[in-house]
């Protein structure tokens, strides 16, 4: 499997009325052909900004700084002009957004919205495009597609609208689909159906998918590889087994114990993570998770942990992996001593 998308050292900071927000701080990952990569993290960790930067959807006025490399099939996308990027958007890579209720133009018929991309990229006539659109609607499981073609978004339910958005994303047979929390706004039963459609796409059409989510159950269901983001940085990445069964980074571990799992075999007490993510206006110079981490050490406050390669597939960024780090027993003793000193 070769790499379809390579993101290296992506850094994006945005302008806001309070100043500069460092939304993405040096993110690396790779998406291979025909695989599903999940990006997991809390809201505000930078996953949406990363996705929108790849697609070139961020308004120029909002971007203060942007650096790094985004290579799609070997072609560098960073720095391309708007019109150059347009060849990729919708054709080679497409995106499905989070809220189906507001992501469709309320004054345009569904069918028209689907064929817009087809007509533009594939230069087909409206008639032929209409045929394709109806096939697409059928593909995503919408009954009576000819009728739906002529309807407006408000005549469709949330689940159906999400399917239409997927149909739009598929319309020009892209190699990569980025799905930003595609099931968050939907009912559980509908969620399952949407996930099935996505799985189907991967197996049948060999489409690669970047799935952004905070639901680990979804990750287990559909993803092959996972990256975990926190405060604009990647803290851990690996295969689904690596992350779900051998989590290394304290944040990943905390996330796993705080989220309910439908595949859990016994009753587990959920443990929420105390505290809040750091303010990205002035991010800390050390590991961003340190203030909330049970195992925080002095060095964690002073600098970003280096990359530790745990296996061929599994990488983590944590000072606990450093060889100079004392063992768990030693650390506990030191911690007790520290507490004792404080109380004295």
């Amino acid at each position, binding site marked *: 499997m070769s790499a379809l998308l390579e993101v290296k050292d992506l850094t994006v900071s945005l302008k806001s009325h309070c100043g500069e927000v460092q939304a993405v701080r040096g993110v690396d990952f790779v998406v291979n052909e025909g695989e599903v990569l999940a990006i997991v993290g809390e809201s505000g960790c930078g996953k949406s900004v990363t996705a929108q930067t790849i697609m070139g959807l961020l308004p120029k006025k909002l971007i203060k700084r942007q650096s790094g490399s985004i290579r799609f099939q070997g072609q560098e996308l960073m720095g391309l002009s708007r019109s150059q990027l347009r060849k990729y958007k919708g054709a080679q890579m497409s995106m499905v*957004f989070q809220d189906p209720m507001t992501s469709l133009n309320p004054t345009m018929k569904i069918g028209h919205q689907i064929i817009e991309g087809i007509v533009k990229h594939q230069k087909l006539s409206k008639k032929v495009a209409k045929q394709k659109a109806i096939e697409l609607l059928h593909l995503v499981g919408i009954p009576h597609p000819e009728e739906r073609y002529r309807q407006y978004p408000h005549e469709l339910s949330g689940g159906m609208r999400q399917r239409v958005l997927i149909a739009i994303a598929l319309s020009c047979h892209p190699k990569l689909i980025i799905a930003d929390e595609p099931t968050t706004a939907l009912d559980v039963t509908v969620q399952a159906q949407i996930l099935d459609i996505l799985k189907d796409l991967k197996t049948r059409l060999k489409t690669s998918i970047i799935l952004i989510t905070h639901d680990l159950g979804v990750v287990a269901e559909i993803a092959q590889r996972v990256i975990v983001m926190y405060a604009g940085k990647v803290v851990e990445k690996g295969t689904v087994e690596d992350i779900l069964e051998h989590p290394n980074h304290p944040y990943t571990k905390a996330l796993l114990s705080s989220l309910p799992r439908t595949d859990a075999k016994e009753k587990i007490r959920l443990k929420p993570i105390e505290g809040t993510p750091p303010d990205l206006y002035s991010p800390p110079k050390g590991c961003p998770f340190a203030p909330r981490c049970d195992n925080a050490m002095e060095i964690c406050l002073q600098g970003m942990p280096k990359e530790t390669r745990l296996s061929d597939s599994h990488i983590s960024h944590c000072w606990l992996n450093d060889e100079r780090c004392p063992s768990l027993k030693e650390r506990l003793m030191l911690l007790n001593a520290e507490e004792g000193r404080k109380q004295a």
Partner: protein
Amino acid sequence: MLILKRFIMMAVTIWVIVTVTFVIMHVIPGDPFASDSTNYPPEVLANMRSEYHLDEPLPIQYVDYLRDLCTLDLGPSIEFKSRTVNQLIADGFPASALLGLQALVIAVFFGLLFGIVAALNHNGIVDYIVMGLAIFGISVPSFILAPLLIKYFSVEWKLLPVASWGTWRHSILPSLSLALMPMAIIARFIRSSMLEVLNQNYIKTADAKGIGIVSIIVKHAIRNAIIPVISFLGPLIAALITGTFVIEKIFAIPGLGKYFVDSIFNRDYPVILGTTVFFSVVLIIVLFVADLSYRLIDPRIKLTSKGD
């Protein structure tokens, strides 16, 4: 059907206006002929009163009035003894309609253009300039702007005629004066509507399809942004109509507005009454049509739904 319901509302409103106008006009103590009493002998005055039905009891006058209205007879003028109100309206309406329409086209076209351009250039130089002009436009009333325009364009620079009506040149200054305030209001309105629309998620969806930016702006942004502006067209036209009163007076344009204003000055009650009814009916029909088109253009509103 909702259309029928609206139509009935319209008819009821017209009836209310007609009745209210009638009541107001006939509550006046005294006699419209008081000023003439020195000129004519009493028998002639009595004759004139019966000519205008003024000697009959009020309810009968009302019924007569309604009956006349249904046959579109607005009665004779008091001031211009040989002309009927209908004739005055027929004389004056074309000029007013032309003025109003011209101003409307200017206001809508340039208002939309400037407002959209300003929104697309948000916080840029163009945005500030347009917004500055818009603030100017809503602050300076047309009847203050008009004399200024006359002074410079007509008197000092001699580019355009001073007043009256006739050629297309005569209509430039009056239309411009009338159009400025509505233009400013439209510009501000569509600008804020566009800004709101451009922040919506479906614009991102459209962008992600890779279609050209012109398509995004026209088919996705403007199409949605313009809807609230249409609902505003009704009151705008109302303002335009009342605006013609002063503009026609200043530019001495022989339109219905001027006749109306003159009739107020002359206390020519049938004319006041008749033109008020006429204006009101025109306005209400316009509001009805505007409301209808708003409902037709926005697909989210069903024509048969209950309520507003």
